[in-house]
């Protein structure tokens, strides 16, 4: 009973319940929403957000925020895209390490600005959001990398499947989630990220190297944006200087916050973040199915996210009160 109770009181179960209720509601209108085929569609909408959300979760747990992830995604995808286009000997897989390295470098840049000049992350990454987006235009001369330049093996990652008809790209996303879990919960530096976000004043008193941990967190966020960048090229088969990664930060931060990470730092779980991503995926998949016109989808998408946050906050407040009463 107490085990069941503690499971029910966990933040994650609230999101899970919300996902189930949402799917049932949509399914009652459009029964085809509750099919395995539809699950595949939902999953295919999520891998890039999932990868970005893992990095963002770590950043938010450390009591920072990274707004520049969409632009880092754009730059790293564009660098690999340009190399594919102009360097004929470049093997198809080389885009993966290159984009990750480019992203990590840009993320490290964010971290350096934040730690060296003691600037708030929200300001720094707002600046680099624009700066990095501009870089994408400069290196590409504002031209799109078209389908024919993206190696077919890379595109195959999003289409072919090792098992169950689920494409590679989804396994990569869940692999990143598992690695993030191991990193966050089972390494010393992972715990230091939580400690730093929970009490930044006390962190140095307990020997936590605040600068290094901050740099690492932003570098990880950048590296994962880079991975998302090359997978964007795989998924969509092109890299566009203005569209690729635009608005990515909004979806990712929304997923992380719905997933229960506290913007005040110190709190966040991989499971919650995964569920947050899946909830967004369900909403994104349901909107066209419900016949909502493309013009209003963005507004409804935003509204649903806000509603999810409001429901979550009010449910959670009651949950905490209930817990206190039980203890008294």
């Amino acid at each position, binding site marked *: 009973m107490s085990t069941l109770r503690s499971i029910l009181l966990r933040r994650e179960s609230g999101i899970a319940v919300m996902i189930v209720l949402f799917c049932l509601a949509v399914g009652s209108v459009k029964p085809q929403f509750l099919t395995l085929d539809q699950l595949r569609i939902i999953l295919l909408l999520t891998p890039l957000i999932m990868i970005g959300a893992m990095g963002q979760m770590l950043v938010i747990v450390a009591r920072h925020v990274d707004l520049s992830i969409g632009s880092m995604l754009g730059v790293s995808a564009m660098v690999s895209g340009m190399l594919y286009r102009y360097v004929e000997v470049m093997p198809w897989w080389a885009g993966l390490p290159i984009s990750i390295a480019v992203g990590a470098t840009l993320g490290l840049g964010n971290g350096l600005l934040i730690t060296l000049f003691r600037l708030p992350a929200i300001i720094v990454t707002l600046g680099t959001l624009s700066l990095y987006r501009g870089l994408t235009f400069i290196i590409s001369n504002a031209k799109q990398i078209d389908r024919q330049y993206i190696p077919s093996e890379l595109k195959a990652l999003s289409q072919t499947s090792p098992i169950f008809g689920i494409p590679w790209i989804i396994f990569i996303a869940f692999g990143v989630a598992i690695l993030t879990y191991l990193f966050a*919960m*089972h*390494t*010393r*530096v*992972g*715990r*230091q990220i*939580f*400690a730093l*976000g*929970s*009490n930044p*004043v*006390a*962190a140095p*008193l*307990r*020997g*936590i190297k605040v600068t290094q941990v901050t740099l*690492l967190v932003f570098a990880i966020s950048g590296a994962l944006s880079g991975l998302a960048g090359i997978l964007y090229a795989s998924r969509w088969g092109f890299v566009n200087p203005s569209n690729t990664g635009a608005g990515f930060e909004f979806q990712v931060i929304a997923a992380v916050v719905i997933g229960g990470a*506290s913007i005040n*730092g*110190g*709190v966040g779980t991989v499971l919650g973040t995964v569920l947050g991503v899946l909830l967004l995926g369900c909403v994104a998949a349901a909107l066209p199915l419900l016949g909502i016109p493309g013009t209003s989808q963005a507004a409804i998408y935003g509204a649903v996210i806000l509603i999810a946050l409001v429901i979550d906050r009010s449910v959670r407040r009651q949950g905490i009160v209930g817990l206190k009463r039980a203890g008294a």
Partner: protein
Amino acid sequence: MGENGAGKSTFAKILAGVHRPTRGTITLNGKPVDVTSPIAAQKLGITLIHQEPISFPDLSVAENLVLGKADDGWFSRVPWAQMTREAKALMDLLGVKIDVTRPMRGLSIADQQMVEIARALASDSRLIIMDEPTAPLTPREVETLFVIARRLRDEGRTIIFISHRLEEVRALCDRVTIFRDGNKIATEAIANLSDADIIRLMIGRPFKEYMHKARAEIGAVALKVERLSVPGLFQDISFEVRKGEIVGLGGLVGAGRTDVARALFGVAPAASGTLWVDGKTVSINDPSEAIALGLAFVPEDRAVAGIFRTLSVEENITAAVPKQIAPSGFIRRAIERAMANDSVRRLSIRLASLRQPIGELSGGNQQKAILARWLLTDPSVLILDEPTRGIDIGVKAEFYDMIGELAASGRAILLISSELPELLALCDRVLVMSEGRLTADIPRAEATQESIMNAAVPRRVAFEGAAA
């Protein structure tokens, strides 16, 4: 032991590597050591337990225990099972029941202190410094703490226990060192000192005499309080302040003086009791009601509760009188400027420009600006909470003159202060609080440092739990 501000905590922090000394040496077990950081202190076996323990509220108790302990590689694995087992063992050793897997957030202060003590044991500290650990504890919790402290002593550990409660120091300590104004005054076996000796050593500073000249005519009762109580903070507080009278409210930090002021001003209204302003029964549930009744409150912590740091000096000065500067709803710059200018001249506030952010002024001038703000409301009762804390001596004297003049103009003044000379110099009467109760009402003629301190130091034996 020592008065507030004697330098006890700073000294403790130097020992624990939080602050670096500018000179001098620390000798540990006969060897000079360099305590460069809290981690270095920990490796030397020194642990400081803060009054409000420093913790990571979102991490589990077990994680808080080990954090910063083993400092091996970044990516080395966290042994969860082993960590939890060891944390449980430590809790059992201390004989406390705390679930080590629960988050730190929500633990009582007493339990948080126990976690800190467990942390000291985990790193096998030989020197444990406790900085006023008992202040936030209940008597029963104090007794538990003492039982554990005695056991640590019997294991051969050294404990430095910082407190200003005589009874506790007598109950626990073998020797006592007394600090005053940043200097060590005496170290003596506790058995050789009487309570009076200790109090005398604590307060016997060179007495800087100050007398304000304008002594006012004392008039009718302006503020009367009867049996004011807030459970857990203070009980049965009754007193009155007359027009033209300066009434001091002395006591140690944590005695509940600020809580009384906050209750009077409606910030945190009292649960029970009666209030009279100018002879009429009133209820004050909100600061705006207090202001309407002619009360003004200059709070203790200027930075938190006083100034609007980024706003200009003139905006800060006129902040409490919005109706006067904006009679029609729009701010009339000329009126605002004139009122601010007048205040600046009257209180001789030193500034570059009325438009500069108040955060750029010195502490004393910020404090003057806040006083100016409240004077513009033309209050009949002025509550000042530690008005001269952190202010240079020269500006202090100006403040004393100002407070005297305000009383002379017929205002009733309640002055909360931890500085005994300040109370003695300014007040017509000194009320003293100790542990939430009013323990003395001393007329000017009888007020001395000794009489105030005697009433301020808690005498109630703090541990009924042990006797039972």
